């Protein structure tokens, strides 16, 4: 029996579209849009001015505090503007726009080999912080914050999350196949940075070749375990992977840290390796461009800030595409314009044909959402109280335990937009709490 978690769904994998396409470098576009906010936390502060000449890897946005991350130039060229641009999270957000000179010249103080084996744990964390590395699975939480030790919470297990449970996406898989050694080295670095005793590489069972490679690459390493997990969405969510792999649940409102675990995404692990080994900041990432609406699906190594439209032009867009999603189909963000640019969290570009706009109906209480919810919530109830704008009920509910994985909405025969309603309910709750804070402050 493969290890797994309770709940979850089995959407069609659709990974065959891009699975066998080796990672190809995507040429630097004439213009890159580097948002100052590509992470959770305070947006970075511009470190350059309009008209400045910048080189590849040069700092263009300075981290604004500890829970923040710096931004680096992904091309060499001239700063054309520092202005708000359409952002994948919606609305326009400040970005450093660089016109590429096509030379791809590296800045002087980066991109040289170094030996990390002599570095201390805190030096490693500093290097990761300086490289601007954030969670590249899509959550974009600054990695150095995640790795920072907390009083009384020793790290026992470090898990490299190679589940890649989102349908369609194959960018992690390609890195597992093509950069197996780098991932294992990245795991070693992360274990050293945190003092974790056990390293884990957790792979969904639909990637047996990646499993074999990892087993071969870790032969003789008694402290690293390669584990196969059942193919089920969301196997790669932190809460589910810790429950499946280690049998430990992250407490409600807590972090993996609370149970002595840190999980890292595959791409993040590669970025950590490259930052330590080659002193390279995070300026590019692997993106899966796929979907039924794409003529030539593939996995591309894309400079950050590349407009999504440029990638779609190169991959070819079929007729009938009516939905553009950044990320996977279960948790990705639908975009209204291809002008948005690739960020540190963009794992996939998904073009869907004839995506339906559903007319939804009342809940028929079939209970499928209850069966599907990996958190054992009652999504039907949450959707009903949010639809009714029943703030008292929302406040009394466990809505904050919902991580919006989308399983409930996927299975709902009434086509209720449960995730949408929950997002709304959380927003109302936040507004209510802010108002209460204000009242307290005033009164």
């Amino acid at each position, binding site marked *: 029996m493969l290890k797994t978690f309770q709940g979850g769904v089995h959407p069609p994998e659709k990974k065959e579209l891009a699975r066998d396409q080796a990672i190809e470098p995507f040429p630097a576009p004439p213009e890159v849009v580097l948002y100052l906010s590509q992470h959770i936390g305070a947006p970075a502060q511009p470190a350059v001015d309009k008209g400045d000449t910048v080189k590849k890897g040069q700092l263009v946005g300075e981290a604004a505090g500890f829970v923040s991350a710096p931004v680096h130039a992904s091309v060499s060229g001239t700063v054309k503007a520092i202005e708000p641009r359409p952002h994948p999270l919606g609305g326009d957000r400040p970005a450093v726009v660089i016109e590429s000179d096509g030379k791809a010249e590296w800045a002087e103080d980066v991109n040289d080999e170094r030996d990390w084996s002599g570095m201390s744990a805190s030096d490693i964390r500093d290097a990761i912080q300086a490289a601007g590395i954030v969670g590249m699975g899509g959550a974009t939480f600054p990695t150095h914050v995640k790795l920072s030790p907390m009083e009384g919470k020793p790290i026992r297990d470090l898990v490299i999350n190679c589940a890649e449970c989102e349908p369609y996406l194959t960018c992690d898989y390609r890195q597992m196949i093509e950069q197996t050694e780098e991932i294992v080295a990245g795991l070693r670095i992360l274990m050293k940075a945190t003092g974790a005793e056990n390293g884990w590489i957790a792979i969904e069972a639909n990637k047996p070749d990646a499993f074999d490679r990892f087993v071969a690459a870790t032969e003789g390493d008694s402290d690293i375990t390669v584990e196969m997990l059942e193919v089920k969405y969301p196997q790669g969510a932190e809460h589910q992977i810790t429950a499946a792999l280690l049998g430990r649940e992250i407490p409600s409102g807590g972090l993996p840290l609370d149970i002595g675990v840190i999980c890292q995404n595959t791409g993040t692990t590669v970025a950590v390796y490259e930052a330590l080994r080659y002193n390279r900041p995070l300026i590019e990432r692997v993106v899966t461009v796929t979907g039924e609406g794409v003529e030539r699906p593939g996995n591309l190594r894309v400079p950050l800030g590349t407009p999504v439209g440029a990638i779609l032009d190169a991959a070819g867009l079929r007729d009938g595409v009516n939905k*553009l*999603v950044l990320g996977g189909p279960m948790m990705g963000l*639908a*975009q209204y314009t291809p002008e948005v640019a690739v960020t540190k969290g963009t794992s996939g570009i998904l073009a869907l044909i004839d995506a339906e*706009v559903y007319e939804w109906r009342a809940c028929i209480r*079939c209970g499928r959402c*209850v069966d599907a919810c990996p958190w054992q919530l*009652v999504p039907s109830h949450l959707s009903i109280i949010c639809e009714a704008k029943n703030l008292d009920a929302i406040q009394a509910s466990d809505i904050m335990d919902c991580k919006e994985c989308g399983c409930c*909405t996927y299975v709902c025969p009434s086509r209720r937009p449960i995730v949408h309603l929950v997002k709304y309910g959380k927003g109302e709750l936040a507004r209510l709490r802010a108002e209460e804070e204000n009242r307290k402050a005033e009164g």
Partner: protein
Amino acid sequence: MSPPAKKKSASEGRDGQFVTSASPHIRHGDDISRVMWLVVVALLPALFAACYFFLWDAVRIVLIGVLTAVAAEAVIQKLSKQRVTVGDGSAVVTGLLVAFVMPSNAPWFAPLVASLFAIAVVKQAFGGLGCNIWNPALAGRAFVVACFGGLLVGGWLPSPAQPDADPPVEARPANWVAVPEGRRFADDEYTRADAVTGASALSARKDYLTAIPESEEQDVLEQQLGATPRQTLRMVQRANNTGRLDMLLGAQVGSVGETSALALLIGGALLLATKVIRWHIPVAFIGSVALFGWLLPFHAPALDGTQVAYGWVWAGGQPLFEVLAGGVMLGAIFMATDMVTSPITRRGQLIFAVGCGLITVIIRRYGGYPEGVAYSILLMNTAVPLIDSYTKPRVYGT
């Protein structure tokens, strides 16, 4: 000659062409219509069985039940300016189930009134699909029984149940007592007929268990003269003596769609295979009827001098009889599993179904009605919000 179509660049002129929505962006293929029409398909074996056993009576009742339900839903939605959703099949399901719980000799207005009440009052007045508290079909039946109960007793004993030879008078089962004049071929009460009316096996049993002096059950009482409660119970069992195979296939007196356990089980298997329902409710309902049917004693009367004395007798029950008689199969597979009116968690569904089974047996043994399936489900429907609030699953990490 039209010019070659110019391929649009992805990055220009696409604004407004992309729809946006919150995630997820893919959905499972099941929707309400598919679920409801699958229930209709699953009811077809029982419908065929009904037509085989009850002939035109079944056709008449089913047509009236379904057409009334669909028309009522369409008219109410039209009048209240809602989207008309009769195409989703849910009104068809209600109409079919209303027909299935009518006796075959029900007057034409019984399914009509029941369907009308089910759709107009129980479903639409409470807010339409998903908002009703009680199972519409069963509430419709309860309403009709309350209004004209006298017209709904008994039913035609379907002809396949007729034995080849006339049984001797002393061996005749109690459900042979009422052969209507008009249906006889000859003066002889027991010459072979196409069909006879009769009480269902459950009604016959009830007659024995509730016989009181100077009532219309005088003939039943006479048989109990000098009998002990245990002997009365033996008479009860003889009265129940419809063959188990006949009961399984459906050759027994009962409502239009409830007599053939086999046909209902086939439909249930389809619903399980297509994941429209889960096993919890049917298994726990049928299982608990069998268990409590075996466990609970009878309260059987015996004539003591001129007084009727009741005594408790445990007879080892008749678990198979209990689950094959009356509406247990129809109720457990198609009524109690109604998603809207049953608990949403699996644990809650088990509690709900065991409650249905227990109340069914209690009504059958000790209540005023011979059959308790409909009321047990309606009562447990009422308890669903309570069950839901006590059976919330433990949230991850709490």
